[in-house]
């Protein structure tokens, strides 16, 4: 177990290192930096001014030097300054994280609570009318763009509450907050719940075909006992993996959802930073997202081994 953990952690570091190189290079092969954008769109014209900005941000140095400066700073806890706001990157990113984290958590709860039971029902009643309804529902979950679903929800809000919910102010109470956040969480969680449901269904169907299910039936166990004690206990293992992966990957869906609902979280912030070529924000944020993904993956694998007696990471 210890050796396994050490190997996994080493691979994680390697992955993050690779990601840091990739994101750094990718950002710098983009034609145009923030100075160009400022001068193109903001109507600045003085070339000397532009050169001064470029030099001040270190954009005239070789890429390798810029990279080392960034990584060196990272190890000292210095994430640099946002080009745009000129505030420390950490101060820009940190306050936005809890907002996105709350949304992701709500969406995840939503998708698990809805996805798992529907998946089980759909598998147990395979090819019944109910199965078809659930399958169509879940497929539509995978088909509706979450930003459109968000827009539809806003439309409904306008119609029933007279206005669009506002996310920039601090909510009055926990209840208000929950209510406010559950709208975008549903918009993004619908897709995840569809994924969870589909995986639960196929995993359950796979398990229900196994010989040990027949054994359980031959012992005289009832359908419910067979489905839950023998079926779900086995089927739930891959489902945990997908829920874990979704936890990290919800960020993708949150990018558009936060944009639609105008929520000041990290996901929308990433898009804004990309648009403005605000390198310090983009690269640090991407590294943060990658860190979350690899850590969640590790947690999922450890959880899996705890739940499946066949898997022991002995080597």
């Amino acid at each position, binding site marked *: 177990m210890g050796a396994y953990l050490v190997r996994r952690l080493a*691979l994680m570091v*390697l*992955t*993050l290192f*690779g*990601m840091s190189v*990739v*994101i750094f290079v*990718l*950002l710098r*092969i*983009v*034609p145009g930096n923030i100075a160009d954008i400022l001068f193109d769109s903001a109507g600045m014209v003085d070339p000397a001014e532009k050169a001064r900005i470029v030099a001040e941000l270190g954009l005239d140095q070789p890429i390798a030097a810029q990279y080392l400066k960034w990584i060196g700073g990272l190890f000292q806890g210095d994430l640099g300054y946002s080009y745009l706001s000129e505030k420390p990157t950490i101060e820009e990113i940190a306050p936005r994280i809890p907002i996105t984290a709350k949304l992701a958590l709500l969406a995840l709860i939503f998708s698990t609570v809805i996805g798992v039971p529907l998946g089980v029902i759909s598998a147990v009643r*395979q*090819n019944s009318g109910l199965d*078809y309804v659930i*399958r*169509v529902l879940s*497929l*539509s979950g*995978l*088909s*509706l*763009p979450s*930003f*459109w679903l968000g*827009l*539809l929800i*806003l*439309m409904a809000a*306008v119609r029933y509450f007279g206005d*669009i919910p506002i996310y920039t102010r601090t909510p009055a109470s926990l209840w208000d907050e929950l209510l406010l956040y559950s709208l975008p969480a549903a918009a993004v969680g619908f897709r995840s719940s569809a994924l969870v449901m589909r995986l639960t269904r*196929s995993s359950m*169907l*796979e398990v229900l075909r196994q010989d040990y299910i027949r054994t359980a*039936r031959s012992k005289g166990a009832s359908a419910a006992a067979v489905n839950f004690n023998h079926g779900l206990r086995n089927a739930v293992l891959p489902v945990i993996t997908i829920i874990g992966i979704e936890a*990290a*990957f*919800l*960020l*993708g*869906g949150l*990018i*558009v959802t936060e*944009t*639609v609902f*105008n929520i000041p979280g990290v996901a929308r912030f*990433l*898009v804004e930073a*990309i*648009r403005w070529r605000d390198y310090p924000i*983009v690269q640090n944020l*991407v590294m943060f*997202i*990658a860190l979350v*993904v*690899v850590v969640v993956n590790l947690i999922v694998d450890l959880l899996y081994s705890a739940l499946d007696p066949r898997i022991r990471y002995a080597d």
Partner: protein
Amino acid sequence: MTDSRIDFTAADHAAELARAGAHVTGWRGATLLLIRRYPLGAIGAVIFTLFVFAAVFADVVAPMDPLSTNSRASLAAPSATYLLGADFMGRDVFSRLVYGARISLAVGLGATALGCLFGILVGLLSGYLGGWIDLVVQRVIDIMQSLPLLVMALVMAASLGPSLRNTIIAIAIPLVPNVARVIRSNTLSLREMPFVEAARAVGMGELRIALRHVLPNTLAPIIVLATAQLGSTILTEASLSFLGLGVPEPHPSWGRMLSESAAEYVRTAPWLVIFPGVAISLIVFGTNLLGDAVRDILDPRQRS
């Protein structure tokens, strides 16, 4: 499932056999059987075909030029002239949706094909050759998979710059690791198959074995994977364009039609919000239905 109560009278052999699809002959009969067995897949095929038709014959189907503006028709509500209304610049929404099918399908099919092509190549090499190549590929895949697909596509799209071609590439690249993984694991098991050993025994070259024996046997998973990915690439294009980092003007992209209208039109011109979303959802829904049926047909493990 087992019969809960045995009902001998229900043993109507002819009806039971018809349900099971016995005595089906000819391609017409086989098609009908497929439709009956996979009704959802058939619906998906119809939806998908309709969109392909609209895309191919957009010049005939669309009543107006999707790009011509008309200030007097700005934000016109749906009417006989403007079937689905007009946008802020007075362009016909219906015509733009019809032409948008071209963009959506071009990016969807293009990115899926490109991503699968590279994924197959990488997966085949990695799985078949093994050794240090495999190790390196595995680590690169780890890196690429450490970002959510949309985030990866977003970064790619931003660094490549906005154009139709670049959008296709930006969406294709995050697909590569997914495809490569599946192909690699398939290749690994195929490599140990007796017929591969036999080919080696008669002195067939490794490259030839890989192309002649291993690749054709990964065809079914590739088709399943490709149809499953198609819906998600179409959605990714819509998301990228919605965020303003996808297909640029003047192409009528469904995703951008929504971003242009987004929140403010929620109150004033809901048709600008509803119809492009319906188009995206429908085509992805159709593709997903089709993809599910294809998987059920080709993947024997999923069969019931």
